[in-house]
């Protein structure tokens, strides 16, 4: 049997709020298999984004362990976690988070350039073409609609062929029709590239399309 791509054990996160310690996540345990699509859902404040941040190594654990493709995040330095993200993860954010002063094409080129891809421009152009925005390659993010920006963000997230794609409310800022298009794009790319997809979402319809739902409530899993 194949080893899980994500192994989360007793994951806890405590934030200090003034003198008071607030425990956001209470010893979560779960695995995610390669190629699986997982939705993390729950009400506001349940710890969804915190969990996503921990899984991506954007934040550090208070207790517990997270292994990404057998590498324990808690044993990696900040630089090590960044290197891991660069080689194995892609991100899609609710508010797109494109670099505002780079064109659509250049945004996609960034991870390719960072991973020393031999032909970053050609590859980025192919990806743009794949998300249907080849004709907008020289546009800046502010010249694109929300849906277009998210498509560029998805192209950027898949550019360096990550094994895991983390998406934080990827359709949260989009209308119904655009949301559907983005969902389709995410799932089709996931299928084509066999990428593990972790989606944080409020949208139960979107969650229903995934293989598995991790439902959080008050920092605990209600699966």
């Amino acid at each position: 049997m194949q080893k899980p791509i994500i192994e989360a054990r007793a994951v806890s996160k405590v934030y200090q709020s003034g003198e008071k310690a607030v425990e956001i996540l209470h010893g979560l345990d779960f695995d995610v298999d390669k190629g699986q699509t997982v939705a993390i859902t729950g009400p506001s404040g349940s710890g969804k984004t915190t969990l996503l941040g921990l899984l991506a190594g954007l934040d550090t654990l208070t207790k517990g362990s997270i292994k990404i493709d057998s590498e324990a995040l808690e044993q990696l330095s900040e630089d090590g976690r960044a290197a891991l993200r660069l080689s194995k993860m892609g991100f899609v954010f609710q508010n797109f988070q494109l670099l505002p002063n780079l064109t659509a094409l250049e945004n996609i080129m960034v991870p390719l350039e960072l991973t020393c891809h031999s032909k970053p421009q050609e590859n980025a152009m192919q990806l743009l073409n794949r998300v249907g925005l080849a004709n907008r390659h020289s546009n800046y993010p502010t010249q694109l609609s929300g849906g277009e920006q998210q498509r560029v963000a998805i192209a950027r997230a898949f550019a360096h062929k990550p094994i895991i794609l983390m998406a934080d409310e990827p359709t949260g800022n989009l209308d119904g029709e655009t949301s559907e298009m983005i969902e389709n794009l995410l799932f089709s790319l996931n299928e084509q590239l066999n990428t593990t997809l972790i989606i944080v979402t409020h949208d139960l319809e979107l969650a229903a399309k995934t293989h598995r739902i991790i439902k959080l409530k008050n920092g605990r899993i209600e699966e």
Partner: protein
Amino acid sequence: MKNDFWWFLKMALRDSRKQRGRLLLFISSIVLGISAIVAINTFVDNVKNDIQSEAKGLLGADMVLRDNQKLKPEVRKILDSFGVETSGSMHFNSMVRVLKNEGTRLVNVVSTDGKYPFYGKIETEPSGVYSQLTDGHNALVDNTLFIQFNLSVGDSIQIGAQRFAVLAAVTNAPGQTGFTSAIAPNIYIANGAVEQTGLIRYGSRLNDYLYVKETNTETLTKIKDLIEAKYRNASLRVQTFENRSQQTGEAFGDAGRFLNLVAFIALLLGGIGIASTINIYLKSKIKDVAILACIGIPSSKAFRIYLLQIILFGFAGAVAGSLLGSALAYYLPVVMSDFLPVEVHYAISPAAIIFGLLTGIVTSLLFTIDTLMKLAQTPPLAALRSYIDDIPLKRIQLWFSRLLILFFIILFAWYLLESWFNAVVFTAGCGLAVLLLTGLSQLMKNVARRLVRPGWSFTLRQAIANLYRPNNQSTVLISTIGLGTALITLLFLTQDMLLSKVSFKSSDKDPNMILFDIQTPQLDEVSQFVKSQEMPVMATVPIVTMRLELLRDKNKAYYFPEENGESANENGVRDHVFNREWRVSYRDSLNDNEEIIAGEWIGKYAGKGDIPISVEERNLEYMQAKVGDKLTFNVQGAPLNCYIASVRKVDFRRIETNFTLLFPTGILENAPQTQVVITRANSAEQSAHFQQQFIARFPAVSVVDLNFIIKTVSEIIDKLKFVITFMSLFSMATGFIILIGALFNSRYQRIKETVLLKTIGASAKKLLRINLFEYALLGAFAAIAGILLASVAAYALSIYTFSTVFVPAFSSLLLPIAAITTLVVVIGYFNTNTILKQTPLEVLRKENA
């Protein structure tokens, strides 16, 4: 991850592409500071190079010997024994009378044998007539005088008893500046004509010069050593061309250092401008760094993109500043022409440019270091959490950046001032100024916060609230505009103080004219003449000249065993107390402007024992003496044993014949002496008429018209003021650019709020009023803060430097407040109006793009 400099550079350029205009505007705050520094350093380098290359031309000889009495024949014999070529010249003050229009003026008469100058030349208009000067009836007249009296070639002038035909105007002479000729312009006559003027008599103040031409430096050194050893106790001074060029270079170095400080302040202002504007730009990059961190490049590396941007744009600003500065340096000799002893040849100074470039980059980095550190530690989580829009720095990091800024400011100030102490004092002064201004702005914000009342109009409430709301530009605007205003205001206040220092306290009854060099036998005749012109003889004062032989029974050689070029020994005794000719008077009572501050005033000599004299307080310090100390003077070969009976404080601004040494009556009455008559002319016309008549009758007597002196000093100060104002304009212009940058920045900060207010129904007119009122408050407060700061500094200067009472004319300070407020409002208007004229959607699209 790719750790490649070129990738970071590419990203830096890519990222800056859309905002280069904005970045350039921000960086332009340092352009003027850099250009001022490069201009001054290039200019000083050029002047120093020219002084070096024209060292001999500056002196006109290889060496000069000067005595304030006729040079002893033995001195000439020594020089003859070395077989060197010499040229003698005598310098003395006298009145000149222009016969064609009866004009009169105090001048410096320079006699020459025609051989001087050995290097350089006396340039005349018409040219080539200098050689005709040996005819005792010709004179060359300084161009200032030539213009003042509308002279033509061939016109007659009278000096003393001798008349001369004007041969030409002197346009340039070795070592001469416009500054020196403004005080007492030179008139050149032949050595042979000095006797005929009848001006060299007892008590005449003269300087006898002997210029030496000898290219062999060994011989020069031998002569110098020999003369200095032999005449150590005499007033004879020796100066070589090297000494002169060194002294002149040092003098210009001092001037350059002062101007550099003014330029450096402009640069520091620019630094504050960068700190305020670029930092807001950099803070907006926190999200970008977090996104890059999510993609896989840690913040500690991603920040290099922005570090490179700052270096690149700082470099661009420094290049622009250096180019502008190098170009300005070409024109500085024009601005400074009155103070230049040599013709300055323009050359680009690589040292000045390198310093400018380095300064530009370092300043840009220093003032952005806080935000760069924040970027370097941006958590990737900031990409997910919208509330993370600022990264708090640790206390140690804040201290590190503050200390680094302090260190570099001190380092740069040291480079410019060449003194650690002065560099620290300068930095402390700047720091204190910025602290005071920041404190004042904080005070204003607190007052504004407490001041707003709900009952006030919406416009007023919004305008005042804008002063303290988050992301307000109040502190930076008040600091920069305030500092610029403070500099300029301080300049004007200092000028007023300087003028009040040199102006004389006078009323309708006080004297305003002094007639001196009157021989005792002609005193009655002079007095009668004065009265005949319906002018009062307000006082007649005898003057006896003498030299100090012994101070506390020790001669000069005791206090100055070696000629080391120092003007004071290790105990603070000044050598000029031995070198100078003391002009003393005697009387039995004190004047109103004199006050005894130590010892006892004795007005009459009892006829026995040492003579009790009174010494003015500063001269007591020059001698490092105290009450009771013994002094021995030499009057025409006769020794006078004296002791200090009292110390006087003298208000030299009162028009009296003020003396540093005062003898009692009963001892000097029969000594050789000259007389001074003090009188008063009631109008400029009466003064001019009197001088014409008086000089015609008494050509050997000199007249000092105090009103004319005040006018001349004012003109010199005006010229100085022009130079300093010119340099201060860099600070003002920098403040202006920072103002544009800060307002531009506040537009970014306020845009959403403005658009929101507009969307919910606030009219463009109302919003404009809010903004303009806010700018008016900011401008007025910044100007007031600057003026307050300048007043504090001026007060300190008045006490510690000028020893005078500082009374600012507050009415004259209203103009800068009004001007600066208007300027801020006008810039603010253009800044706001562009937003208000457009629809909210249009603005948002454009500004976001």
